[in-house]
């Protein structure tokens, strides 16, 4: 599609990006009120930021607080902008870049866990093999009959990826993943 051989002019000045993108995990504490999630994700889509993973739930019922965990990818400059833009949203209490914080604490990266439900259907050797591998991954069986299993697996994203990959030839039917839940090591809160 090289339809535009003649580049058009522009009223804008755009400099080439020289920084390298990084993947960071952000924790956002918000008032649990209608529309707050739309404000957060609307900001990401509206300003052209990436969301690689999104996890959200109420965490402190009495205070009506929810915690949103977003894994995003951008240059350090963009990541700093994302943090400041999020902090402008009125019901946002605070934003912590867990990846930056973990470096400040002298740690490699924040603790990150994901939960997945994995349905596998099959018979014979495949079925035995699926159960054996699930055991090796410390995945538990939460539903089964003679034709299927539903496994529950918790761990780092890479472990869940791997588990799903090896279940594929053994009769993988469907997958549901929660997205990343994360916090930093040590006694301090966010």
């Amino acid at each position, binding site marked *: 599609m090289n339809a535009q051989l003649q580049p*058009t*002019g522009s009223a*804008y000045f755009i400099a080439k990006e020289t920084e390298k993108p990084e993947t960071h995990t952000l924790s956002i504490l918000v008032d649990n009120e209608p529309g707050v999630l739309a404000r957060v994700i609307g900001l990401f889509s509206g300003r052209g930021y990436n969301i690689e993973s999104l996890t959200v739930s109420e965490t402190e019922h009495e205070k009506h607080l929810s915690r949103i965990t977003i894994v995003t990818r951008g240059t350090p400059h963009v990541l700093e902008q994302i943090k400041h833009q999020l902090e402008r949203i009125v019901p*946002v209490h605070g934003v912590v870049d867990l990846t930056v914080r973990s470096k400040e604490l002298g740690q490699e990266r924040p603790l990150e866990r994901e939960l997945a439900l994995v349905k596998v259907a099959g018979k014979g050797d495949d079925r035995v093999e699926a159960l054996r591998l699930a055991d090796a991954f410390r995945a538990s069986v939460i539903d089964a009959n003679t034709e299927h299993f539903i496994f529950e697996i918790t761990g780092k994203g890479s472990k869940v990826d791997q588990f799903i990959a090896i279940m594929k030839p053994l009769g993988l039917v469907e997958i549901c993943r929660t997205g990343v839940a994360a916090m930093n090591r040590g006694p301090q809160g966010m």
Partner: protein
Amino acid sequence: MSNGHNDQREMQSREMTGAEMVVQALKDNGVVHLFGYPGGAVLPIYDELFQQDAIQHILVRHEQGAGHAAEGYARSTGKPGVMLVTSGPGATNAVTPLQDALMDSIPLVCLTGQVPTALIGSDAFQECDTVGITRPCTKHNWLVKDVNELAATIHEAFHIATTGRPGPVVVDIPKDVQFARGIYTPPQTAPRTSYHPRVQGDLEKIKAAVELMATARKPIIYSGGGVINSGPQASQLLRELVELTGFPITSTLMGLGAYPASGKNWLGMLGMHGTYEANMAMHDCDVMVCIGARFDDRITGRLNAFSPNSKKIHIDIDPSSINKNVRADVPIIGDVGRVLEDMVRLWRASVKADKKALHPWWEQIARWRARDSLAYRMNDDVIMPQYAIQRLFEATKGKDTYITTEVGQHQMWAAQHFHFDQPNRWMTSGGLGTMGYGLPAALGVQIAHPDALVIDIAGDASVQMTIQEMSCAVQYEAPIKIFILNNQYMGMVRQWQQLLHGNRLSHSYTEAMPDFVMLAKAYGGHGIRCEKPGDLDDAIAEMIEVKKPVIFDCRVAALANCFPMIPSGKAHNEMLLPDEATDEAVANAIDARGRELV
């Protein structure tokens, strides 16, 4: 016991309908004027407005007009502008002024009607997802589903619109909530815990800034709309700082008037159509003090060539403005007024100003100034647009004048040739660049300042986007002056087509134009046409004299272009000056690399 009785009586006196609450909350927040347009979903509120005198409602002709009028009202008074519109199309028509107010940080409170809560989501008549549509174009918005939360929500809306970095807010009120009865809560100072804009600057950072400024040999102050938003005190402090330091000062489009254009340190506006001396000084400076401005792309030119050898101090109330486009060496987060107060105090206490050290810099500036970058060739037969603005400025000297503009060439000429000595006198759509802003904004200004001279410097294309508000001006006897620089082109569009698209003037010429003089008369206003430079002064005098809305059709040179200019892809020191702007230079101003920029 008796206390219990009093409480009960007070509760009874505070029990009212949602519609009554809206009017009470507006009164309690000091609202005197309200711009709006009725419709099905706001009828209960309009019924309440009918039965009181404290708030004057201004009936516009289109909801966009209500928004821009409220913006003009806000920017000329420092108070929030308030608008009231119905659901569906009323709300969607408000979107343009909401985004305009967001980008220019104007406190604007917009109340919208909504279909009854039971019908929300059913595609009811005149239903739209108002909070969804306005979420990205407001600072915050609310859908009120419980009448007992209505008053507190409106109070919070005013608080959020006017504090921190000001901006637009929307309160969406379903019709059943307007009818429902509940308890009214008066305004309280209990802001939500998540919202606390920082106003006081970090003193250590301010100290560092003062030290850096004291060592500067080629300094410049670059101020913006934030100074005006911070209030008249901030403009006063800015003037004090300039006086103390002896620094040259330039300003963005939004910041004009904070420092007087007649002041001796004034370099004129900077940016794409700024003066040569302002842009060259920005490029060559060693210390830049950015006060309440945001390094917008119309200001910086090519970013990687922007003021390459300077240390940058950036004062802004919004942390997201810092390091967004340009990295700051000394970032100071806080209200401009508060920070300037500390800065002036610290400078007085610690710096022995050596103004002699700045002499070589001022001499350099004088050489740039001698290029006379705003010069244009006078013509005895045709009115040059710059000349028209200059004569208008001369005629309004000594008068209580407010200027609004539309968007385009006339806006830049007005910024270049009309000079402002006070803040809050210049209302223009900077960030969003909204054609059609100026006429309703002038109306809003005139409502706030009934005895002032309010002029919308307009273009023939822009003004037709909201021309219907002439009818509103006539209704409220608001004697606004619409001064149209009529060249029959969308001049700025044409200028870019000449620069970038081989002079192919695609749809930028208006072949059919209304007779503006007859149009003014049709609306019940006064019309004036002027075609010769020699007639201009008398015609302007007539315009000022007439005590009703005037449309002034000023026929100007059709092909005049707006210079100086930083062409696309160029730096501050690569300006195209008017005496160099031959047809050939214009055609070649943007090289292949510039054209590649999308």
